């Protein structure tokens, strides 16, 4: 700390240049924060996808249905702890742009499978009492102003009622919250028994199964057994881990991780050049001063350390501002107005951002630091 005034003083010498460098670093980390949040939105659920959960879908494609009777057979397979099913409803609330997923499920079993969706027990009881009952995620409830007791009409685009109507009506009986920021709070769940009885056609069919295995280490073996169980049947299955399923689902949009890495690599490489050049220029201008410091007894390593500390400080200020600003702005909500089911800055990415700040600081200070280390005092003083 005793060297801080010296380091700070060096930064204050060219205030505008320091401010511009800090701003460019801050902008890069703000972008990093937003791209992280966008990835979290696209890869929704992947970070919290259960290691012990499998998704079982039709072997041909996700939109092909599976018999509901598979449930009992899956539950009997060795290594399976629990199984539930889900089906894509694909309805519209008032306008096509008001997208949120609607899924018919068996309430208690489904919530047991997904403990990350938290629903008050009284609301679960109410849901089990009311056949047209539905529970909705906090985010969708807030967005559309849904509250318990509301009757919500949903226009079916895939499913019609037995009477041929496209409008389905549900009664909101509960609002669930995510136990984790990565949990999707945009979904709308309603009862499968009501849906199955009320729909026109495809009765006794479901979209996919979610299976909890007893031992996550045996997930692959259990998935194989499930697929073997239904091999050579009219509806063969493909079982895979929930994480793999979600990743392949997210990759339908594109390899977001790769795209984001490519953008960030370009941004950080540019910042590295800008900040590195600024540091090198700053050190070149202070050759004489570094020579004087060495003359009065500052050793080579200390001279290098001061330059590295200076570049780390610039990176820390810029990166801190960028990450902090990103945190605040992202906390204020999704700028697209709800295009992403979740939109948050994952803690792991904040930590990675802090690591990047350190790497940037060290990388930009390395070459100028080495030149300070190697600077000959007599040569430096002759330049004054």
């Amino acid at each position: 700390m005793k060297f801080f005034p010296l380091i700070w003083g060096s930064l204050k010498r060219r205030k505008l240049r320091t401010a511009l460098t800090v701003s460019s670093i801050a902008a890069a980390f703000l972008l990093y924060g937003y791209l992280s949040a966008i990835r979290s939105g696209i890869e929704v659920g992947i970070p919290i996808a259960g290691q012990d959960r499998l998704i079982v879908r039709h072997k041909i494609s996700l939109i092909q249905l599976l018999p509901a009777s598979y449930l009992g057979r899956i539950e009997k397979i060795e290594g399976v702890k629990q199984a539930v099913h889900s089906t894509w409803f694909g309805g519209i609330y008032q306008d096509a742009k008001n997208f949120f997923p609607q899924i018919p499920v068996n309430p208690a079993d489904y919530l047991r499978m997904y403990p990350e969706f938290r629903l008050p027990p009284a609301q679960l009881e109410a849901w089990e009492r009311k056949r047209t009952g539905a529970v909705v995620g906090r985010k969708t409830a807030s967005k559309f102003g849904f509250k318990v007791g509301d009757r919500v009409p949903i226009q079916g685009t895939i499913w019609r009622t037995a009477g041929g109507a496209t409008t389905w009506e549900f009664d909101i009986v509960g609002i669930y919250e995510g136990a984790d920021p990565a949990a999707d709070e945009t979904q709308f769940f309603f009862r499968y028994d009501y849906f199955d009885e009320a729909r026109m056609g495809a009765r006794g069919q479901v979209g996919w199964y979610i299976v909890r295995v007893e031992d996550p280490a045996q997930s692959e073996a259990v998935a194989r057994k499930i697929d073997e169980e239904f091999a050579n049947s009219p509806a063969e299955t493909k079982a895979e881990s929930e994480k793999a399923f979600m990743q392949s689902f997210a990759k339908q949009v594109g390899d977001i991780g790769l795209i984001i890495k490519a953008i960030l690599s370009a941004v950080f490489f540019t910042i590295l050049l800008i900040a590195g050049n600024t540091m090198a220029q700053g050190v070149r201008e202070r050759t004489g001063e570094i020579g004087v410091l060495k003359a009065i007894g500052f050793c080579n390593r200390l001279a290098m350390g001061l330059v590295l500390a200076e570049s780390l400080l610039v990176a820390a200020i810029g990166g801190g501002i960028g990450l902090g600003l990103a945190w605040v702005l992202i906390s204020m909500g999704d700028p697209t107005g709800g295009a992403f089911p979740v939109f948050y800055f994952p803690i792991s990415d904040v930590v990675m951002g802090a690591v990047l700040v350190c790497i940037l600081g060290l990388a930009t200070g390395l070459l100028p630091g080495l030149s300070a280390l190697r600077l000959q005092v007599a040569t430096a003083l002759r330049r004054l």
Partner: protein
Amino acid sequence: MNDSLVRIENLSKEFQRGSEVTPVLAGLRLEIRRGEFLALMGPSGSGKSTLLNLIGGLDRPTRGSIAVGEDRVETLSDSALTAWRARHIGFVFQFYNLMPSLSALKNVELPLLLTHLSSSQRRKHAETALEIVGLTHRLKHYPHQLSGGEQQRVGIARAIVTDPTLLLCDEPTGDLDRKSGDEILGLLEGLNRQQGKTVLMVTHDPHASARASRIVHLDKGRLVQEAVS
């Protein structure tokens, strides 16, 4: 009792640029007594500053030996030489060489950052050094807020704050007007006479050298004349 502080024997320094070798000092012998105020004069390129740098351990001789007190400067490793400089040498430069972003007090504190002194002790030492040079009223001023003479006083305070064995001054009045130069010379004289500091001053100016107790002339890397003032 041997009162010699600096003993230089057969000192040579050559600079090499490509295949061209330029001798700057050739077989020089010099002794500086403890408590002496020695002026080193000579034309440009005579090797004055090179000799000062070699005595101060900022450069290494091509041949010969330099002893300061009990230490053989040319035998010290780079890191030992740096530590030795911090302990034994105070430099005063022609253009003051203060850190522009630090106040006078912080500039004087710089050499003390290398010690184990606490913040308050460092401040106290720096204030004392600035008091010796008569700048207690300018503690918080930055170099650009000080006159040339005042900046050089700060430079001298920085040089003496660690109580070094030897003060090496390279043209300390070279950038000052006569009045300010006289004040600086008076200050160096006072440090020599009242506080017993050994001072080696490089200068072109006969008026400045007249304040020294002994004058040594260098020409083409050799001692050509010696006089007691």
